[in-house]
């Protein structure tokens, strides 16, 4: 049921309500997806605009309407990946979860999202490092405070047991290594370690081990992937 139809004029009845740029948005997204998948398959260095255009099933002209060059498209794809993962993490836990449980929930959700779309993981842990290390810095700068916020009840700075920046780097190396084996779908196998890394800086070694055990149990009890 539509609301507020009362003040319509003849002109406004016929005015389209779907967003004007819906087509362009869809095209842009197809290009980004194509870039991500191509980088996952053959790395950024080896990817050409021809590859992206063919995968996205758009014309070269359309590509250049959206992006100046391959690099600009890659940067946009990275931003898209980072945003997607942050949304995933943000919606993965209940407000009444303990900080440690919430951290485990968010980590699990992100890792599962990465396993669903290995291209994202590849881009963030492999190509981004080589092509645009600053994006990783941005990603880290956004991730650590988000985790920290789970542990802070009133926005105060949280005391840390280990360096969260180091933990982030370790997680990245672990994921990169898993992807290099060509087994990106098996990323959830790393959950005990990744949950440990996410919890340890803020909750300490013992709390991290406890969450790691829970993550292992979750992994065993969840249906086969």
């Amino acid at each position, binding site marked *: 049921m539509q609301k507020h139809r009362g003040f319509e004029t003849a002109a406004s009845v016929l005015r389209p309500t779907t967003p004007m740029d819906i087509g362009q948005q869809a095209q842009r997204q197809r290009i980004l997806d194509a870039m991500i998948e191509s980088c996952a398959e053959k790395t950024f260095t*080896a990817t050409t605009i021809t590859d992206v255009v063919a995968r996205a099933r758009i014309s070269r002209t359309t590509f250049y309407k959206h992006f100046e060059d391959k690099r600009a498209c890659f940067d946009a794809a990275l931003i898209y990946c980072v945003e997607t993962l942050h949304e995933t993490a943000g919606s993965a836990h209940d407000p009444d979860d303990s900080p440690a449980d919430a951290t485990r929930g968010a980590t699990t959700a992100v890792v599962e999202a990465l396993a669903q779309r290995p291209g994202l993981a590849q881009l963030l842990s492999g190509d981004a490092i*080589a092509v645009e*290390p600053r994006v990783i810095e941005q990603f880290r700068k956004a991730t650590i405070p988000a985790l920290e916020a789970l542990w802070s009840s009133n926005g105060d700075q949280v005391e840390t047991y280990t360096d969260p920046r180091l933990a982030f780097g*370790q997680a990245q*190396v672990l994921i990169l*290594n898993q992807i290099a084996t060509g087994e990106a779908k098996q990323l959830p196998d*790393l959950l005990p370690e990744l949950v440990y890394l996410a919890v340890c800086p803020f909750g*300490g070694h013992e709390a991290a081990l406890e969450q790691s055990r829970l993550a292992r149990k979750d992994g065993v009890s969840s249906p086969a992937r």
Partner: protein
Amino acid sequence: MNEGPEDLRQWRLPRGRHGLPRELVERSQRERLLAAVVRVTVANGYEKTTVGDILGEAGVGRESFYELFDDKLDCMLAAHKVLVDSLVERVREGYLTEGPWPQRVKNALEMTLEWLASDPDVPRFLLIEMSTIGPPFRPIFQAEYARFVELFDEGRDASAPAPELSRASNLAVGAAWAKIYEEVLRGRVGELPSLLPEITYGLLVPFLGEAEARAVASAA
């Protein structure tokens, strides 16, 4: 690019007859080319580097280059192998010795950091330029990482606590890797040795917990 005492062309053999055996001539050329590819790719980036740049830096002719290597990547991979082999040797020396395990971990780390800090081009080459070579990088990264994990496990004896996490050795190698990578990226290669306590601590926590790891990290 490099004039003065570090000019690789100083190692060039004299023109004309010198009567040196072929193996020796090739070895001299190969050594200069490997040193040159590291310098040139770090200075210009892998993609922009040409074989001509490497030849100019090394003082080696094009024909000799192609007798030794298929192309620029082949030369780069050869340099990578020589360097990683040397680093592994260095780590073994510090690690596979007598003494309590946590201390041997720290010794190995110290040697690694000093080895890397001795030539700023080398860590940049190994960690950053190598990652821009495209598809061949993935298997190389994986093999190199596996090599260090294996070495780490090789040195775990009865004095090493059994960690609860099944991939604790992976985490340990990752701790050193990630921290070193970050410093190299920021251009702080010279300061790598000063990170010893920090990396030791981060690396050992999954094995020893915070208190014991801190004791080892902060001991002189």
